[in-house]
């Protein structure tokens, strides 16, 4: 059953890729490149992963934060995700659950183990930093095509690969960015690099994707994401390990009851 589903997804992806590719060649617009990239990395269903975040300040001092998480794709909408904080110890057991939506604000809840309480977090503004890192909340989590407008700017190079450069403009008024420049690998559509420009249109951060691995012979996933703040010299390296796709997860594992019990 599962394999049938996978085959079907593959056929569907190939078909849509074909259709989109023809559209792409005729129009060459940025949005289609973004769509192709998104679609080539969709269809994984469910996943689990362990994350290590290394924060480096200007003096080279390092701070390490560990987390693990579960994700689920939702048809016609954004992903559902659950992130469990493992270190530092005072936040161990804190869980964040996010339902991202394609066209509207995401929904977010936080489980606080110290008071054993679930709290809803207003998440309309995601420009703030994630755990004191150089990643903003809007930089992590699923990228929804509908949340940007696009502009194709030409060819370029990143990580030694030939890329298509696409400018994207966040539609959200609360975004911390005026625009991003995304480098899509010409061969396999995966993202190699993103440049983030602040509201004043000055380069703020650069994000480099590396250590790509091919999962299920379909999905390219980067094991390392390195964000460098060009304005203050701080840096955050986000590393993924133990990534498993197609794990046994259902809607019931993304409920408020699950949020309270997940470890």
């Amino acid at each position, binding site marked *: 059953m599962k394999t049938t589903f996978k085959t079907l997804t593959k056929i569907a992806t190939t078909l849509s890729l074909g259709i989109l590719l023809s559209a792409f060649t005729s129009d060459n617009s940025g949005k289609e490149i973004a769509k192709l990239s998104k679609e080539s990395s969709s269809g994984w269903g469910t996943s689990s992963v362990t994350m290590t975040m290394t924060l480096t300040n200007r003096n080279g001092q390092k701070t390490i934060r560990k987390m693990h998480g579960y994700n689920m794709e939702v048809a016609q909408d954004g992903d559902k995700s659950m992130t469990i904080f493992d270190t530092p110890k005072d936040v161990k057991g804190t869980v964040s659950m996010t339902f991202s939506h394609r066209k509207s604000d995401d929904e977010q809840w936080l489980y606080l183990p110290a008071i054993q*309480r679930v709290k809803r977090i207003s998440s309309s503004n995601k420009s703030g930093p994630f755990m004191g890192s150089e990643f903003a909340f809007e930089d992590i989590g699923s990228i929804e095509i509908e949340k940007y407008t696009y502009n194709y700017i030409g060819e370029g190079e990143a990580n030694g690969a030939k890329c298509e450069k696409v400018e994207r403009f966040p539609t959200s008024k609360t975004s911390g960015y005026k625009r991003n420049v995304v480098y899509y690998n010409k061969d396999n559509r995966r993202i190699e690099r993103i440049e983030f420009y602040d509201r004043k249109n000055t380069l703020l951060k650069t994000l480099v994707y590396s250590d790509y691995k091919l999962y299920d012979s379909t999905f390219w996933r980067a094991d390392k994401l390195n964000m460098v703040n060009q304005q203050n010299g701080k840096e955050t390296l986000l590393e993924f390990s133990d990534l498993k796709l197609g794990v046994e997860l259902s809607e019931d594992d993304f409920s408020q009851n699950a949020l309270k019990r997940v470890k």
Partner: protein
Amino acid sequence: MKSLIRKGNLLILLFVGVYGTGFSQEKTSTNFTSNIGGYTRFDIQVFPKNALYSNQHSSNISAYYQPEVELEWGKKKRHSLSFKGFLRISQYDNQSTHADIRTLYYNYYIKDWEFSFGVKKVFWGFAESNHLVDIINQYDGLEGFDIEQKLGQPMAHISKSFKWGTLDLLGLTYHRPLVFPGEEGRPRPQGVLNYKKPDYEGKHGRYRPEVALRWSNSVYINNVSLDFGLSHFYGHSRVPFFKLDQNYNPTIQYELINQSGLELQLASGASLLKFEGIRRESKRETTFGYVIGEEYTISNVKNSGVDLGLIAEYTYDQRGGEVINGFDNDLFIGARVTANDINSTELIAGYTFDLNDNTQTYLVKFNRRIGDNWKLNLTALGYTKVSSKQFLYQLRRDDFLRFSMYYYF
């Protein structure tokens, strides 16, 4: 004798401190996970105002130990056993030296069902300043009138999720009375009563079976989220009722009550609108109460990464002066500043104003992590102005400043 006990307490305090710095451990295999952790905390509490009652002190040192153990096993880790202990050793007041099992329960889940059995904490409601609907667990009155500190409650709990929400059914027994500090403790009310031996309405005393039911759901439509809960509780009240007996001595009574609760939360953009309402019925009286308010978050203020949360809540409670925390016709204004920095620096400030009698209280909390394992907390609680009509009048000189250091292991 007393000084001996004191010395003993200090010794245990030191022991806890040393022991608490012990080990934490995590073991994982495919079918079994164990996790041992928790924290030790040292408190120095200073009371700037002269004590109202003799035998009280102007400062107090205490240590706090909270060990935590989590075991999970079986396919998809469906079975789990959770333990959270609690021990406070206080320099003064033997009542305040106390231990509790905050949680000790077995949990099993399958699909949309969840079963648990044991000592647990269950939280209901959305408001920040006052927890009206939250009835399952008793306040820990020895922890300085902190509404987030509650005692463990023995129960059997079944939860099932449906398309239209989640149903929770709880069977409870072993009522936990509200206990205040003894003679030397601060903050405490006037007189030292035998809080652990109250009068219970009905035959079974604290062993009376109690029942609670709740239906809750979250709905998301057009960028607006609605969370709601509808609950009912039958059993002994968590709030005691002080009554004079024939000899005019105060006695503590726990009435049998039927309490229905409604919780609503509307989330849209940066705003959370909150409502909690209760109808409480005892033989003596039927009363209503509600909390209504808003929490508004200004995220990433001027691109500094700092979040500013503003909270305004109003409580009305027909029980009036009977309410121990004094929230009967009160306005609460609060602010939460979250730095979102590496050390999770946070400042919380709240101010409560009673519209009936001008009673004013404030609370300030500051939190900051130091390194990977330490955390600093500063708390200031002030009773600026307290009317003699309030229960808090008995605590009116117990303003305090507390310095706490946590070590997580």
